[in-house]
């Protein structure tokens, strides 16, 4: 019993000895980053794509994921998808009509013949960039896959805010895209230092020039379905 307890205590101690330094560093390193994205006139920008990329180029980007972009009622769902570079995305078609989807964006060129259901293998998004997806039959169908090489990413909410709770302190470049901007370039590119202060890092990022945005219809696409 004694022996057993002692053994367990030792074992636990050695496990802790191994784990504690790691846990200790991560605890100290997990800093909060709060961003707010506003237009040149100060109005909030909802739905923008935020990517936080370490200036230390030896740090790997976020872990690749498996994404899904569906086709429902002649629309892509979601119509903006953000995935780390190296992710695989499937494009099922849940409509009763066939679609013929394609992209001629430099970051990923691909096309599927007319299909319904899920007959196609996932697409490997192996290069960072914005990939515009279209349907050759239904021109009004448009979607964007943002393939990102940052460590943290997301979209701003209705108040223009986005945050990450577990950012490793260091120097970062924050890139912000607007999915409706005509030029598929970041609308903001800014250096940010994330410290391990308990209050976290909080920043408002302002676009330097007025945005030229495409009109996005709020009317369901099936009104004029063809």
């Amino acid at each position, binding site marked *: 019993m004694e022996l057993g307890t002692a053994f367990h205590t030792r074992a636990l101690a050695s496990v802790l000895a191994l784990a504690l330094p790691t846990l200790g560093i991560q605890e100290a390193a997990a800093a909060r980053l709060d961003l707010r994205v506003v237009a040149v006139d100060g109005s909030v920008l909802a739905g923008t794509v935020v990517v936080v990329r370490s200036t230390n180029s030896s740090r790997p980007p976020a872990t690749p994921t498996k994404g899904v972009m569906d086709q429902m009622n002649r629309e892509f769902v979601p119509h903006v998808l953000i995935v780390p570079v190296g992710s695989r995305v499937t494009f099922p078609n849940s409509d*009763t*009509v*066939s679609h*013929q989807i*394609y992209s*001629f*964006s430099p970051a990923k*060129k691909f*096309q599927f*013949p*007319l299909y319904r259901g899920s007959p196609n293998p996932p697409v490997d998004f192996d290069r960072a960039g914005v990939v*515009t997806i*279209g349907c*050759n*039959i239904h021109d009004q169908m*448009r979607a964007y896959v943002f393939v990102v090489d940052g460590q943290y990413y997301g979209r701003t909410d209705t108040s223009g805010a986005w945050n990450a709770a577990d950012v490793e302190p260091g120097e970062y470049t924050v890139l912000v895209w607007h999915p409706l901007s*005509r*030029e*598929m370039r970041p609308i903001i590119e800014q250096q940010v230092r994330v410290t391990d202060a308990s209050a976290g890092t909080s920043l408002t990022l302002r676009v330097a020039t007025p945005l*030229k945005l*495409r*009109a*996005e*219809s*709020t*009317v369901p696409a099936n*009104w*004029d*379905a*063809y």
Partner: protein
Amino acid sequence: MRNPLNLSRCFMLLLSAVAGAAHAEIEASLDLRLVDSDGRKSFVDGGWGKLRYPANDDGLNLGRARFAWRGSPGGDWHANVDLSAWSLDEHNALGVTEAWMEWRPVPQSAWRSNLKIGAFYAPISLENRAPGWTNPYTISNSALNTWVGEELRTIGVGYSLEHLGEGSGSAFDFGVNVAVFGWNDPAGVVLALRGFAMHDRQTSIFGHLGTYAYGGRDQRVEFAEIDHRAGYHVGGYVKHDSGFELSGLHYDNRADPSVYLESIDDYAWNTRFDTLGVRYDSPRGTTLIAQWMHGGTAAGPDYANRWKFDTEFVLLSQAVGKHRFAVRYDDFSTYQLASAFPGALSVDEGHALTANWTWQVRNHVEIAVEWLDIHSDYSARVALGELPRADEHLLQMALRFYL
């Protein structure tokens, strides 16, 4: 383009080519119409009324029963056949409104080109953009597009080249299109002899259109090759990503009006026109369409019988959830400029107001209610013992089911 019979052979060839397509889809819809009209005897029955449903059609009617097949026979080819029945009587029980094959490769860059072969609508209408060339805003088409559905069909080859702005960081899409066609030599006869009308009935390729009461004949063959000369149309569009669109087209069937075809008892009508339209779609569901057309037609040796025609309309529509409201004002006129026969030259002038409410009740079911108020002054009505001036009103409800 030897004789009208070849047209049916071409169609059978198309059908057999696409019948074995690997990827086929079927669309079907039924449009039942409850009608309350005070219209004159309809052009459908050889009268000079402007409406599809005259006073004696009050009650339940078949608006349209549609069956369409589309498929991909392989590669970058797509095929489409559209069949419709417009009434339960002897007028075209079932007919083909469009039948074509299209080569439409997936774009590899911002440039896209496609080739269409068969019978199809020229890219004229800014209204009729729903399946089966239907109008999602109003039950009755504008006077301009009513005429397009009655007398125009491109039976030949069309090519278009487009530049898609989004792929290249530009705010503009633009495109040009050109087509060469035959079998559209009677186009213009209805405008000359009846003037413009307003309804949703499209003439099928092998069907007829009622026109006028002369000689006891009230059915016209609309799609026939009479003079063995090809016609053409050429057009273009520019679209801005804020929702504005501008489009135009020039049409000339290059018909020789001195050539007469006995089997259909008609001359080749030399018809040409220009049309220009603007459209704006706001992100909040507002649509504004304005379109203008000006042209002329002639028939008989030495262009002895000549007419000019003009029409324009403005349509405003607002979608609110599952509801869509639309109002449209139409203006139209046809003036005879010369006649081989003694007597006064005919004049048809008119305008119309249309108000429509469409409700998507649920998936596959739609209800539309429309009020159409059309006033016209057609001098030739005197020959039928009618007053030239006609004030016709039509209240109709469409109940639509989609497969």
